[in-house]
């Protein structure tokens, strides 16, 4: 599933536009929310009047400049009426921000981050985009009509928005009080009790943070996130969040650096963060920074099933909710299948040649589209009623 394409910005189109797209003409009174999509440029220019923007695969012509226009779009077929997109004239990007039909929509808070994880799937950029993205996101929220069942705030590190983050969450609280809101954060900012108190005060009715913890050993965690002192801040952050009653999920990415102490980490989580509502044990994504650090990170999932089972045993028997994300069933020990979730976003997952004829494919999360280059050497098709031990 494509989420970004590009085109050529019209000459007088200078600042980014966010709008809902439509393949069909929209009544004039509603046009100020819409970006019209078309393969060709209408002969009657009046037909473009009043739109927020115009997106076309056609080549540039001089006289449609009354409307912010992007010409020569490489592709528009992935867009469906009512998708919300951003047209960025500065770099020619046309980004899909929201798809009403999907349950995997995200609110992208910032590209900045104060960590620099070895396996970051979304490498940060050091440019202050926080105010611009806040305004874009507030506009996005205004444009969404039907309350989504869930939304994820992600980045970058959303807490780098500082006070702006509270504005964003408050806007979501006000417009979609019944939408489950999840925010992915490294949790370091919550070491400051005043910041945590203010987050709690926003009082979103259905809100949870997903915070990664990679080891019970501070040196190992700090190495993975490439930031000295990050472990202490995250751990103190958990404490503050518990104190203010903010719900948390703990996320662990499994790779060669986190696997050796995984059982100890499970015990540490139980002893210190018993209040965690969910622990997600996640397979490595071969994208972003991960490929360039693969020498340190790679371990075949088939080779860490003992450690994974032991960690799940510790967490689950002590009453914590555990899920395993991003793992294919054929490399996951059968005893762990019930913890496996089909977590890969619909626009990112796919299957391999080896999966052809697999009897449990419907239950399997499959692969990230970028996993095709590097994956377990043990991927194989399973019979429909597989129940033998591995």
């Amino acid at each position, binding site marked *: 599933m494509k989420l970004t394409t590009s085109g050529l910005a019209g000459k007088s189109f200078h600042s980014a536009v966010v709008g809902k797209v439509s393949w069909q003409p929209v009544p004039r009174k509603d046009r100020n929310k819409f970006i019209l999509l078309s393969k060709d440029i209408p002969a009657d220019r009046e037909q473009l009047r009043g739109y927020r923007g115009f997106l076309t695969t056609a080549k540039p012509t001089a006289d449609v400049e009354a409307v912010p226009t992007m010409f020569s779009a490489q592709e528009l077929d992935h867009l469906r009426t009512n998708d919300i997109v951003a047209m960025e004239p500065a770099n020619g990007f046309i980004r899909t921000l929201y798809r009403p039909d999907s349950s995997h929509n995200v609110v992208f808070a910032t590209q900045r981050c104060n960590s620099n994880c070895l396996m970051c799937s979304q490498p940060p950029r050091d440019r202050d985009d926080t105010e611009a993205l806040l305004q874009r996101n507030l506009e996005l929220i205004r444009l969404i009509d039907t309350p989504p069942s869930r939304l994820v705030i992600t980045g970058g590190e959303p807490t780098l928005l500082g006070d702006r983050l509270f504005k964003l969450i408050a806007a979501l609280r006000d417009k979609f009080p019944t939408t489950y809101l999840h925010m992915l954060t490294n949790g370091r900012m919550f070491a400051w009790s005043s910041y945590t108190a203010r987050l709690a005060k926003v009082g979103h009715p259905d809100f949870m943070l997903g915070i990664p913890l990679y080891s019970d050993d*501070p040196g190992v965690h700090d190495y993975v996130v490439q930031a000295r002192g990050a472990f202490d801040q995250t751990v103190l952050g958990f404490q503050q969040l518990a104190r203010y009653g903010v719900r948390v999920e703990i996320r662990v990415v499994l790779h060669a650096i986190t696997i050796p102490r995984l059982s100890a980490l499970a015990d540490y989580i139980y002893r210190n963060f018993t209040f965690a509502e969910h622990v997600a044990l996640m397979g490595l994504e071969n994208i972003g920074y991960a490929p360039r650090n693969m020498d340190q990170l790679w371990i075949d999932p088939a080779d860490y099933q003992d450690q994974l089972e032991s960690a799940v045993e510790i967490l689950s028997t002590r009453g914590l909710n555990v899920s395993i994300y991003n793992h294919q069933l054929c490399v996951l020990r059968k005893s762990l299948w019930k913890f496996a979730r089909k977590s890969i976003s619909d626009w990112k997952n796919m299957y391999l040649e080896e999966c052809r004829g697999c009897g449990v494919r419907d239950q399997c999360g499959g692969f990230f589209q970028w996993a095709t280059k590097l994956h377990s050497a043990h991927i194989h098709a399973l019979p429909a009623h597989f129940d033998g031990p591995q």
Partner: protein
Amino acid sequence: MARVFLPAAVYSTPGTEYRLLPFRFLRLNEQKEILVNDVGDYFIGPVGTAETLVHRKLSRGSDLYSILKAKQFLIDDSSSPLLDLLATKYRTKYGFIDGFTKLHIFVVTLRCDHSCHYCQVSRQTADKSTYDMSFEIAERSVDLMMQTPAKNITLELQGGEPLLAFDVIRHIVPLAKRKAQFLEKNLDIVVTTNLANATDEMLFYLRDENIKVSTSLDGPAVIHNANRPRPGNDSYELTIRNIERARRIVGYDRVAALMTTTQLSLSHPIEIIDEYVKQDFHSIFLRPISPYGFAVKTKKKTGYGIDAFLDFYRKGLAHILEINKKGYDLAEVYAKILLTKILTPYGTGFVDLQSPAGAGINVLVYNYDGDVYATDESRMLAEMGDHTFRLGNVRKDSRREIFTGDAFVNLVSASCNQSLTGCSDCAFQTYCGSDPIHNHATQGDIFGHRPTSDFCSRNMEVIKHLFQFIAQQDKEILRIFFAWIHNSGLKDVNRMAPS
């Protein structure tokens, strides 16, 4: 954009010094020793682990260093912010103190139809006026009870045989409920009864008032009847019939049973446990006899040494684990209490095994005559003429006077095992408790003498025994333990766990 990644060594802790955080240790056997810190986290390692740690011979970068740092046995220059974490865990472990006295035992009458060897204090008499709690004392007792800051309180109605004074119960229950509601407290009510005199009307009353029933079952007929004589020698038959009737009327899960271990019981752990299974109970408390009441007087008939009890306990626990493995859920209550302290971040407010001791702090006893005692055992001592732990009387003393009086102040001076000789440096301190009243009764001194204390031997041995199971890392046994801790069944844990 090219970002630089730095190697692991850059993030490992610099320097060579580390400092110790409070912990205690003990040799478990020839090979192993155990280290336990102030918040109950433990590490079992080879003999010499503590020495290596204390003499600063632990090398950074070793696995052991990481483990002991993560469990907060040591601290280095990089981990000082995490002292807050230790403080939180300490607060969590001692959370049971919060709210002060939670269990309030009302002795509504001393009269009883049984004449059990190990009891204690009851009287076989029909004289209501002398041995029943008067309405006036009942009212004053409820008043005093409701002054506790605790939000969640339990009222335990006991005796004697409390159902013999049912009019007193009917007076206390609505009064306590009204006051609890007014003060926004959650009130649980339990009646401790042999059920022999329970009419259907009484049981319907207990059902309507949502009162739980705790009764006595010492084992199969041969043991139960020998331990609990009554005219006709039919206590067992009566008890079984009445448990059935109480379950039918009050509610199946509202009826619990407790056993007391006598000398006769000692050679029959299997039969006693099987009786609990036969009667479809899912918890059993392998309790030693208390050195009080008639139990002291009749020591020859009922008493035994602690080694004999421990032998009984170990055999019993092994049998209980086998029963669980076969699919029948049966928790041993004492093990469950200790395992909660050992395997979870939480403490338990079990009044007989906590520090500060439960006496007065977590439990108060309101006697039929208005006297207030620190524990049920203190009341039994008083019945034998020793009034050391009489804290006051509901007629003359206010709550303030009771909790600032000499008797209470004297008692709490020995309430914390953190400051008792022999306990202050014991590895199991966090899991254990102190019992000044037991010390006084058995050793003539509230501080006690650990090397000759049966309280100490019992707990040391039971805790060591549990650690043997824990150290084996047997998945099935650990799952059974967690089933007990969660008040659930092995099937529920299996459903949650890998399978």
